[in-house]
């Protein structure tokens, strides 16, 4: 029987991680390994993920694939994994410390920069924009926000009217945007650090009968639908499915003594009405890219 | 240990002068004075709501007076809170029990005065239990000091209260209706303790609605009416009639004469071998239209449990309850719609929603009767309530007043009122006169009499034997959670009841 891989994701509510898990499962099927998923019962709970890692160490899986719910808080748990000599692949969100087989993910900063630039160029380098920030203190939204801000620096004529958090949530994004639309008669662009908030902002725009260019990041199915319908300008592709694939592949390859690069980062790619087709399908139908097509 | 510091009975230990106290809408006390002398039992008499409990609460610092002076050993003193009262040696046994249910007997006796251990705040538990045992022995009780109080019966709790008061080395002891929950035997041992304390020079204020106690114990009697001091007199110069006249301001017939019922009607309720989850077993009983049936027995014999089982408040596990020949459902709401009402033993916790108005409480049982379509009308409710308030002479400034602000007796009238409003066929009274003054008692009996004359039936539980022997057409006597005998009108004497109620072997 094949390798047993324990895969840790952050929550069971965000479709992004569902896609990641499906990718992991697909890779495991290909490689004849087994995957067991561990997800905190409370979304993004740090103490729970730590406990789950401790419990899993007792069971000694062949390898672990870990998306830490927090940049630093999992350091202790990762150290325990290392001490127990269980190989660990770091997936999607980078951990601060620890020995890892490799990192599989995307560069959030680059995604923010690329997507931000895309919108600002479409605005012709001028106009008013608002930013919808994500959960405070989490690395991913922070990095993306940094990317957006750096993109804005390149377009000094664009004015940022407001930068408020909607906590990565769609409903909050609807309400925050509604209020911002009231406060600001002219908004030309909305930069959301994830697609859930971007689609929320679109709802608010529709409700108020206003128009603005909206971008988000992740490339979720919902965003693809919106792009297809012409309601959303673009979304930064996060390659969720491939994260799962390549993390599990990396783990299995390293167990089998095959070479694995230290870093597999999918390039920042912006999806718009011209190139959404590759993502326009159910994640169940997706398949892993060949290892060699990504790792050169 | 309890030796009096002064034997001079002329200087009061504590004295209240010109005390006034108002609650929103009521002047509870108006210029009342009271002096408590060492070695005397001072009886405080008055109708419900006269202000007796309020006066006692001021005496022990639970309420602060709006005006008036306080003297301790003849000297002006300050009386701001319970701690002051404790300094002057005032201890109280309240009308409403003041025990903590989930602490044991010993800890309750010394609550707030625990013997100190080594560490800061630590209790010296062995010393506490030993001393608590001593005080329980003094009242002749066999209760274990480590029993949590919530496991004790009401009467046993009352005894713990007394031991608690004793343990305070009181110079002044206030007893607010201490016997209302006690059986005769326990009353006797309480009286023995009171006489002991009197001998040791303790000053006592004693509130009771039982006339017999007044003459058995009292050294001095003060009558209060409508928050005013009416008269202080010696037992020798007073007769029961005289005291009642002073209390109510008119003459009242206390003998509760009534025409007994010769030809009772159909059986409203019949119990056949009923056993319930609350412990009663093999109960056979029948109540017919037009009669008042008593249910007697010692405290703890299971009378309340029988009432609750009939009413559906406790689950019936064997036997049958028949209502007009048909099985009665085991659910209070359905029992009420069959026309049966229960006036429970504890009005505050079981009878009333204290935060709601008099009106709301009066109509809650008869909503289905008065509003059969379930469409409610505030106006109609107000009219109904006003009628009941007038009919029962409930002393309240308005039908919108919170029931919690009424005096005990008036609260009891509200509980009765809600069943009058529901116009039930059978009323079960559990201690209907507990804490009720003589005037109100007479009124309540008149009411009960009126009900049975209209062809309704009454089952009455009472711990006061005269009530059973004078009022009832028949009575059942209970012992050990079952009925041990039935007495017809002719056999219904105090001796016969006691013979059945008390276990001889």
């Amino acid at each position: 029987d094949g390798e047993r891989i324990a895969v840790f994701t952050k929550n069971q509510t965000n479709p992004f991680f569902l896609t990641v898990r499906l990718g992991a499962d697909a890779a495991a099927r290909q490689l004849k390994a087994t995957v067991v998923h561990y997800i905190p019962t409370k979304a993004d709970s740090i103490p729970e993920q730590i406990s789950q890692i401790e419990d899993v160490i007792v069971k000694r899986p062949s390898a672990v694939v870990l998306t830490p719910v927090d940049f630093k808080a999992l350091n202790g748990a990762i150290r325990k994994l290392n001490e127990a000599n269980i190989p660990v692949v770091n997936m999607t969100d980078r951990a601060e410390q620890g020995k890892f087989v490799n990192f599989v993910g995307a560069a959030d900063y680059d995604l923010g920069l690329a997507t931000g630039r895309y919108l600002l160029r479409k605005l012709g380098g001028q106009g008013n924009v608002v930013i919808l920030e994500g959960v405070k203190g989490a690395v991913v939204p922070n990095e993306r926000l940094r990317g957006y801000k750096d993109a804005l620096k390149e377009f000094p004529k664009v004015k940022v009217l407001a930068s408020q958090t909607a906590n990565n949530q769609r409903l909050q994004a609807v309400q925050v945007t509604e209020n911002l639309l009231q406060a600001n008669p002219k908004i030309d662009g909305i930069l959301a650090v994830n697609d859930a908030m971007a689609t929320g902002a679109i709802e608010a725009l529709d409700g108020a009968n206003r128009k603005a260019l909206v971008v988000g990041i992740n490339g979720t199915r919902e965003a693809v639908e919106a792009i297809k319908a012409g309601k959303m300008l673009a979304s930064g592709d996060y390659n969720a499915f491939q994260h799962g694939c390549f993390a599990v592949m990396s783990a299995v390859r390293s167990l089998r003594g095959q070479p694995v690069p230290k870093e597999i980062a999918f390039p920042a790619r912006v999806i718009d009405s011209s190139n959404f087709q590759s993502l326009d399908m159910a994640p169940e139908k997706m398949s892993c890219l060949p290892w060699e097509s990504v790792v050169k | 240990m309890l030796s009096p510091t002064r034997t001079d009975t002329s200087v009061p230990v504590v004295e209240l002068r010109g005390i006034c106290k108002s609650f929103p809408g009521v002047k509870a006390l108006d210029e009342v004075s009271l002096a408590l002398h060492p070695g005397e039992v001072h009886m405080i008499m008055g109708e419900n709501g006269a202000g007796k409990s309020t006066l006692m609460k001021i005496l022990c610092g639970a309420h602060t007076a709006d005006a008036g002076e306080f003297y301790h050993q003849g000297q002006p003193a300050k009386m701001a809170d319970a701690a002051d009262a404790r300094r002057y040696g005032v201890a109280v046994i309240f009308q409403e029990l003041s025990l903590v249910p989930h602490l044991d007997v010993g800890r309750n006796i010394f609550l707030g005065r625990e013997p100190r251990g080594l560490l800061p705040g630590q209790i010296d538990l062995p010393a506490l239990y030993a001393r608590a045992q001593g005080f329980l022995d003094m009242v002749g009780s066999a209760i274990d000091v480590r029993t949590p109080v919530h496991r004790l019966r009401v009467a046993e709790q009352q005894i713990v209260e007394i031991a608690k008061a004793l343990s305070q080395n009181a110079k002044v002891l206030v007893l607010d209706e201490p016997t209302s929950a006690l059986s005769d035997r326990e009353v006797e041992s309480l009286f023995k303790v009171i006489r002991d304390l009197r001998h040791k020079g303790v000053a006592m204020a004693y509130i009771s609605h039982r006339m017999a106690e007044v003459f058995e114990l009292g050294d001095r009697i003060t009558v209060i009416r409508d928050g005013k001091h009416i008269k202080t007199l010696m037992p020798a110069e007073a007769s029961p009639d005289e005291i009642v006249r002073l209390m109510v301001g008119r003459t009242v017939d206390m003998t509760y004469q009534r025409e007994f019922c010769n030809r009772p009607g159909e059986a409203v309720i019949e119990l056949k071998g009923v056993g319930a989850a609350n412990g009663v077993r093999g109960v056979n009983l029948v109540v017919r239209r037009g009669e008042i049936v008593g249910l007697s027995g010692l405290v703890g014999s299971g009378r309340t449990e029988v009432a609750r089982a009939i009413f559906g408040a406790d689950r019936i596990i064997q036997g049958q309850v028949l209502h007009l020949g048909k099985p009665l459902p085991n659910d209070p709401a359905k029992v009420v719609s069959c026309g049966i009402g229960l006036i429970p033993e504890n009005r505050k916790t079981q009878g009333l929603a204290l935060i709601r108005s008099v009106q709301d409480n009066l109509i809650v049982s008869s909503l289905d009767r008065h509003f059969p379509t379930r469409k409610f009308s505030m106006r109609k409710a107000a009219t109904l309530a006003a009628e009941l308030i007038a009919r029962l002479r409930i002393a309240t400034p308005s039908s919108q007043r919170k029931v919690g602000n009424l005096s005990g007796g008036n609260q009891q009238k509200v509980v009765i009122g809600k069943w009058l409003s529901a116009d039930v066929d059978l009323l079960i009274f559990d201690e209907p006169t507990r804490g009720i003054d003589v005037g109100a008692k007479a009124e309540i009996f008149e009411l009960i009499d009126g009900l049975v004359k209209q062809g309704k039936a009454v089952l009455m539980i009472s711990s006061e034997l005269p009530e059973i022997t004078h009022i009832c057409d028949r009575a059942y006597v209970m012992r050990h959670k079952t009925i041990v005998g039935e007495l017809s009108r002719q056999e219904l004497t105090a001796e016969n009841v006691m013979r059945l109620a008390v276990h001889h072997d």
Partner: protein
Amino acid sequence: MIDLVLRRCGAAWPAAIERAPGIWAILVVLALAFSVTTDTFLTGPNLTNLGVQSSILLLLALPMTLVILSEGIDLSMGGVVALAGMVAASALASGASLPTAFAIGIGCGLVAGLWNGVVVAYLQVPPFVATLGTLGMAQGLALVMTDGQSITNVGDALPALFSSSLVGIPTPLIIAGVAYWITHFILYRTRFGNAIFAMGGNREAWRLAGGNVAAVLIGVYAFSGLMVGLTSVMFASRMSAGHPTASLGLEFDAMAAVALGGTSFERGNGWLFGTVLGVLAIGVLRNGLNLLGFPSSLQVISVGVLVLLALLLNGLKRQSS
């Protein structure tokens, strides 16, 4: 032997079972089930895990028991753990020593506890509302402090603490044990303990005994705050960081543990050792299901079923007696 331990914890064998039959039944069934279905449950390392994982919840559930006995509730725990943890972490970040950080964290908790106590006792705001308010305020302040960022540059001493051990026993377990012992002493061996029972059982009785109700309430919430402060540093130690939101909702877990252990929300009726059992039951369930690799969504359902089942069993017992 066990009987002696139990007696010291406030009840003898049969009484101990009678107080919270549901939790005993569930603990026994779960432990048996997991011992049979996994080969790792009954191993030393796993039981150590279980203890260490439960320690934080116990540190909160102990004071919660006292608060609930006093007919109160403390909804602010999660928020205050966050705030005090952030403050302690920022102290460490600016170079303070570990003991200083503990003092600061505990101090913060104490201030929040005192505030709760004052609002409940003097302003007479119902505890649910008062502590709900404090929850909001603490959570807000924790977010505002660093604009929602966690504080991660806390040095090495704090992270090391949680995984350290003394004479072979993990430090968190020792701290939880000492905390239990102190709480037990306070509740069952001091006047203050009697006063807490009186707060829930019969406040008037305490007042009439010359006691100061406000002082007791403030004491209860201050004690709770103190323990919350201690927890905040332990929690930060587990995460190697001060985090503004990770602890939110912990108070509900603590309340569930207290209720599982047979403490009722009225009349000052409760049992401190039962709380330990409640914490353990939650810990065993989660640990065992992880060992089984149980799907997470079913784990969520199991927690709810555990709580309902235990309370149902307790209720059945009450009804039949």
